């Protein structure tokens, strides 16, 4: 018989509790790098362009242009967080814009037209959800199919002219209203973003969305309704795109084939700059996404105001994107999250 004795297990080490340090969290948190980028953009704007960069007139122009991307981004961010990328949001914006414009030209009142438009968008969002959640289709492939299909439906709605002119002075006045010198709808979009951030960080639903995106198997084991969460996230994404299309039509007084074209890339690039990840869910914050959009819009605006060739905007957005990816890796990437 051996004399070996079973070693007594060492006492378990006390769990390491990360000390709460608000300043450090602010500097290293998920929106820190993009917040500093926005501050840098504002500083460059003030130095190079002058005080008019932060004038209410200029902020109003940027704000009016950002309403649609902000709303679409805040809602599409839920899908990204839950681990599914919805490529159809740009086409959904175009479809929503076309359907809303068409209904207006058929003398529908704007509220009814808006409600029907949103229901139609939710229906297409539900098809996305059925394909991805119900049948386990690859999200990129399924929503790419929806992107193409919606583009075709939009073209059919727009008819041979390729555009529907539905200029409605009342609607235009509504969407162009200002509050404290800024577009009212821009402020609404900011409030919506803050609400989305609160939902993501402070509510059970938000934590579930992040958990599903982070590791859906672990989430399932933890009793989180993964399928329901993803369905809800995809429906939210389509709802946001639907609202975006309606706002587009109200702003432009028309719908056209180009409406929403490529918007998905603009929004997702900004969300990635703001800390989201396209390929791994559970990462990102709506405030970071909004700051990403503000940073890109700020750079674009500086180039506009300095009359620098607009062809440089894409180069700078690309470099910002690369910098965001680099920062993400430097702070630990997956491990950090």
């Amino acid at each position, binding site marked *: 018989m051996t004399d070996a004795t079973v070693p007594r297990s060492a006492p378990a080490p006390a769990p390491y509790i990360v000390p709460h340090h608000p300043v450090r969290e602010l500097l290293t948190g998920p929106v820190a790098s993009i917040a500093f980028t926005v501050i840098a953009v504002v*500083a460059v704007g*003030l*130095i*190079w*362009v*002058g*005080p*008019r*960069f932060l*004038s209410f*007139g*200029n902020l109003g*122009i940027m704000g*009016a*242009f950002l309403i*649609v991307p902000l709303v679409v981004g805040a809602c599409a961010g839920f899908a990204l967080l839950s681990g599914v990328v919805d490529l159809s949001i740009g086409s959904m914006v175009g479809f929503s814009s076309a359907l809303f414009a068409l209904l207006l030209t058929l003398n529908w009142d704007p509220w009814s037209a808006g409600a029907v438009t949103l229901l139609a968008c939710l229906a297409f969002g539900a098809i996305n959800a059925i394909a991805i959640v119900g049948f386990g289709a690859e999200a990129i492939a399924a929503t790419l199919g929806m992107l193409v299909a919606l583009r075709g439906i939009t073209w059919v709605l727009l*008819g*041979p*002219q*390729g*555009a*529907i*002119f539905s*200029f409605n002075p009342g609607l*235009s006045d509504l969407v162009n209203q200002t509050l404290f010198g800024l577009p009212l709808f821009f402020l609404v979009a900011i409030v919506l973003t803050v609400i989305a951030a609160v939902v993501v960080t402070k509510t059970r639903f938000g934590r579930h969305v992040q958990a599903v995106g982070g590791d859906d198997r672990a989430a399932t084991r933890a009793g989180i309704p993964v399928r329901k969460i993803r369905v809800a996230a995809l429906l939210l994404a389509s709802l946001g795109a639907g609202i975006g299309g309606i706002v*587009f039509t109200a*702003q*432009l*007084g*028309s*719908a*056209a*084939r*180009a*409406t929403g*074209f*490529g918007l998905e890339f603009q929004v997702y690039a900004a969300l990635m700059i703001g800390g989201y990840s396209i390929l791994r869910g559970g990462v990102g914050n709506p405030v970071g996404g909004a700051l990403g959009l503000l940073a890109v819009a700020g750079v674009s*605006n500086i180039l*506009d*105001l300095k*009359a620098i*060739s*607009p*062809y440089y905007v894409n180069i700078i957005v690309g470099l910002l994107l690369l910098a965001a990816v680099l920062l993400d890796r430097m702070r630990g990437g997956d491990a950090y999250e």
Partner: protein
Amino acid sequence: MLRISKRAIATMALAVPLAFGIAWSANAAEKFKLGMAVGGNTCCDWMKSQGDVARALAEKNGWDYIELSNNNDPAVALKNAKIFAQEGVNAMIQFNGQPASNPAISQAMTAAKVPVVTYDIADPGMYFVGIDNLAAGIAGGEQLGKVIKEKWACNPDLVVSAEGAAAGIVNEWRTGGMRTGLKKICPDIPAEKWVSFESQGDAAVGLPAARDLLAANPDAKKMAVVGLNDGGVLSLINAAEQLGRADEVIGWGQDGAFITGDNVNPHLAGSVFYFLEGYAVYAIRDVIAPIAAGQIPPLKAAADNPASRVEPCPVSAEQAKAVPVMAERVAKLLAAPAGTTAYSLFCPNK
């Protein structure tokens, strides 16, 4: 040892940019300021050249000049117009390939009291400077008709229209005008031989639809192609080449964008030059310069009663060899006396 507090650093961080900005504002002089919104579609060199010519002419006149790109996006076009208004331009020129945003742009610029010149696509609130699209269409169609009559005795298998519906009435005038012109020369082509596809006025974008059309007409060999512009016509020609069916395709385009230089497609028999790069000569001569001089011209917004009309110049591919490429045309145009048009300099069929 010098110690700088955090508060001092923060104050400097805000004060320095503001000081720079205020200094910049003080230096800004009051000059006539022209805003130019270029189309921003990557399809065509002439969109960038339109800005280059406008910039050079503005500088010659001693004006300030701001150029923005519409990125072929209606929302960007509206944003650009608002930036022009904010920057205090005295007049604006635009090529807006997405005219769906024109009503909103018109409303914004009317509110800002900024007159707008629009190229080629009319809007009731803007000065129209552009080609007589219907005349250009008919002229091109007649030229193609003469070729078809000589080669095929007015008996093609198909007459294909490369439409660009987004251009609205402009498409109807140009593409429809080409059909009208062709019918003048060859009036007996049966109705079933006239087919259309949506090219969107872009050689690459229209390619799939052009392939579909060819697949739907497998026996067609002798095909005449008309269209909104050279790009649209080329989409059918390129599709036919991909499918090995280009031997007997003859196209005649509009706008002259792809009929000069070393790589002209041999199936593009001709085009109608608009010399798009030189539109600013007309706009500045007939609208902007009078505004700068305080003599605001009456608003002429209709395409059939324009503020300034650009003359169409139909040319065969052979004649087009004598026309310089765009970069050279821009250089010669800018070296010419003020008010000289590209048509007067380069059109071989004046």
